[in-house]
């Protein structure tokens, strides 16, 4: 009895505050944004910044009057670099917290763990991370870069500069396997040859044998698709064994800021294609970095996923304001117009209606012997073309599936 009375009182108090808070604006209350990111565990180093970026964007938006007059409220959970946590918390934010949208996920294994739940519970999620590409799912918006943006720029550049023998060292899970498939495809198309490939289980930290296999294969450069902090030990060990080969990557530096964490020159001649890192010398990037450091002075590094997360909040704001609704179907009607674009810290970005992925400015970052970053090349407005060309068209049909070059969408 007393409990139900208490609950009634609490509900009354809650509605009271809500009425007070919303004031003269909409009567609907706050827009709830769920944030599921790894704030502890093996991936934490690369992902704490994503949470901070979302907090920064939310604070700015709320100060400037919210989204269409409604405040943005964050519901944040720490997913602990653990796939089962993603499933648990995804159910919780969608069913109990009833959020309007979820920003979730770093590793592709986590994304594939929660994606069926988003589909099943009819949720709406942003995956603000670079990944191996191919997710054709109307419930998802991907703001990170994909292989056709990162590898179709990087691999031909490296082959032209260093030679055509390529060795891939990749993390042994869906991200590494599918990215390696992309590397194979692009190397073949550009007339090169794979000198070798090795897949490393997540959590492995000792690389003596892998280093020797690389030396045996004598490649011209090594594509490193290593993920997680344990695997990052490779660079230090390869440098101390004097492997001395140029490296190419879509994940290093831009995510795990290895050039800041390791002593020079272990990352010398590492080439990375990324859509953002804090060293980018443009007014937009500098302003973003200054705002970030003002709010989070102890942030070790502002990486590409932090920028993806930051711009995603603004994209969401734009779409909700244009749709005048937080309903996914209404928002997707706005996306289908094909003109959802914004000026992000990296430059102009747009959402591709067919795949719900983003176009990006791709920066080629080169790590010098003293671990300083230079940008030998910049590609503007690189589109996430592969899914659309392969036959994924979310404006017409939503297969809720992930495709790869060897497993493309079925032809209509």
């Amino acid at each position, binding site marked *: 009895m007393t409990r139900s009375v208490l609950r009634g009182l609490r509900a009354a108090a809650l509605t009271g505050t809500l009425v007070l808070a919303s004031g003269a604006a909409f009567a609907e209350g706050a827009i709830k944004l769920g944030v599921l990111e790894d704030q502890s565990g093996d991936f934490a180093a690369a992902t704490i910044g994503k949470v901070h970026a979302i907090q920064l964007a939310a604070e700015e938006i709320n100060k400037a009057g919210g989204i269409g007059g409604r405040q943005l409220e964050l519901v944040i959970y720490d997913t602990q670099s653990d796939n089962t946590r993603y499933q648990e918390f995804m159910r919780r934010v969608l069913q109990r917290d009833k959020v309007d949208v979820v920003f979730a996920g770093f590793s592709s294994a986590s994304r594939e763990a929660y994606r069926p739940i988003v589909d099943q519970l009819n949720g709406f999620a942003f995956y603000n991370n670079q990944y191996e590409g191919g997710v054709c799912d109307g419930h998802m918006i991907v703001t990170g870069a994909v292989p056709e943006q990162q590898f179709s720029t990087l691999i031909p550049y490296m082959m032209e500069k260093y030679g055509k023998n390529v060795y891939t060292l990749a993390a042994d899970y869906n991200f590494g396997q599918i990215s390696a498939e992309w590397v194979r495809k692009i190397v073949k198309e550009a007339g090169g040859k794979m000198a070798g490939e090795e897949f490393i289980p997540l959590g492995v930290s000792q690389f003596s044998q892998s280093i020797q*296999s690389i030396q045996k294969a004598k490649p011209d450069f090594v594509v490193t698709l290593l993920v997680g902090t344990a695997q990052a*030990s490779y660079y230090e*060990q390869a440098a*101390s*064994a004097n492997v001395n080969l140029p490296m190419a990557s879509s994940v290093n530096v831009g995510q795990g800021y290895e050039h800041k964490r390791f002593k020079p020159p272990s990352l010398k001649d590492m080439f990375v294609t990324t859509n953002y890192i804090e060293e980018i010398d443009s007014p937009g990037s500098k302003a973003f970095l200054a705002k970030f450091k003002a709010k989070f002075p102890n942030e070790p590094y502002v990486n590409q996923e932090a920028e993806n997360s930051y711009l995603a909040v603004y994209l969401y704001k734009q779409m909700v304001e244009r749709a005048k609704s937080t309903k996914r179907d209404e928002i997707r009607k706005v996306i289908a117009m094909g003109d959802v674009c914004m000026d992000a810290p990296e430059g102009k970005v747009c959402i591709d209606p067919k795949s719900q992925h983003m176009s990006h400015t791709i920066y080629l970052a080169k790590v010098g012997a003293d671990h300083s970053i230079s940008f030998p090349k910049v590609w503007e407005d690189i589109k996430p073309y592969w899914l659309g060309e392969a036959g994924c068209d979310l404006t017409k049909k939503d297969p809720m599936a992930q495709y790869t070059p060897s497993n493309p969408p079925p032809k209509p």
Partner: protein
Amino acid sequence: MDIATLLFSALYQFGDAFAFLVLSACGLAVIFGMMGVINLAHGEFIMCGAYVTASTAHAGLPLPLAILAGTLVSALVGVLVELVVIRHLYERPLDTIVATWGLSLIATQGTLIMVGSTMAGVGTPFGSFQVGAYSYSIYRIVLFCAALGVLAGLYALFNWTRFGVLARATIQVPHMAAALGVDTRLIYSLTFACGAGLAGLAGGLYAPTMTLVPTMGATFIMEAFVTVVIGGADVFLGTAPAGVVLAVIKSVMTSWQGQLFGQIGLLIAVIIVVRVLPKGISGFVLRERT
């Protein structure tokens, strides 16, 4: 490619795997073999050693001294943990598993909150050398020598010193040792500190070659436990031969089919050994302690 190059490369890979297995496992083996305590916070003692080594090295201490500092601090933390937690659980070996597991969670998350998600590395010293077509890191040879040194040191400590005799007496028949005037509590404390210090040493030695993050201890854990499970009761006659056998399996499998098969090889070896020598960890502990 000539025979000498191949032979050296095989030896180097063996030594590298051996060093990693033995150094990861020694601390765990001492605490488990001598005290019957399964220390699930072993990885966090390794992390503690690595963090202290890296931060003292950043502060300007030469690397060998920094590693020594890492070892000593881990040993001190070991004394503290023994006093506060382990001491009260000697008669309950299964409870120590839960308690040390809890400690490891607290240590990992505490480090993340207080020190941050990563720490800058210190860089591997000594450079490299060339044999045939391959170049090798000199520091890896140092690690191999350190592993041999640790085994020899442990043997000497427990067989040739007064502490060693008292420790073995305390382990064999605790109340008899106590009746003869041995301070058994002190002996347990020191043994635990020794194990924790060895974990710290492993962390310190590997700190220059690895990513320094709060979860780094976890990358040592599988190898450490596999070695201790296979090695079994006797620290010296167990850990060293287990290190040799597993290093051969791991280096051969890894060079044949890659890292994944190296790990599969280790785990299959454990399954076979546990099956053939039917003394699972807990069964073994309970029999030994009662």
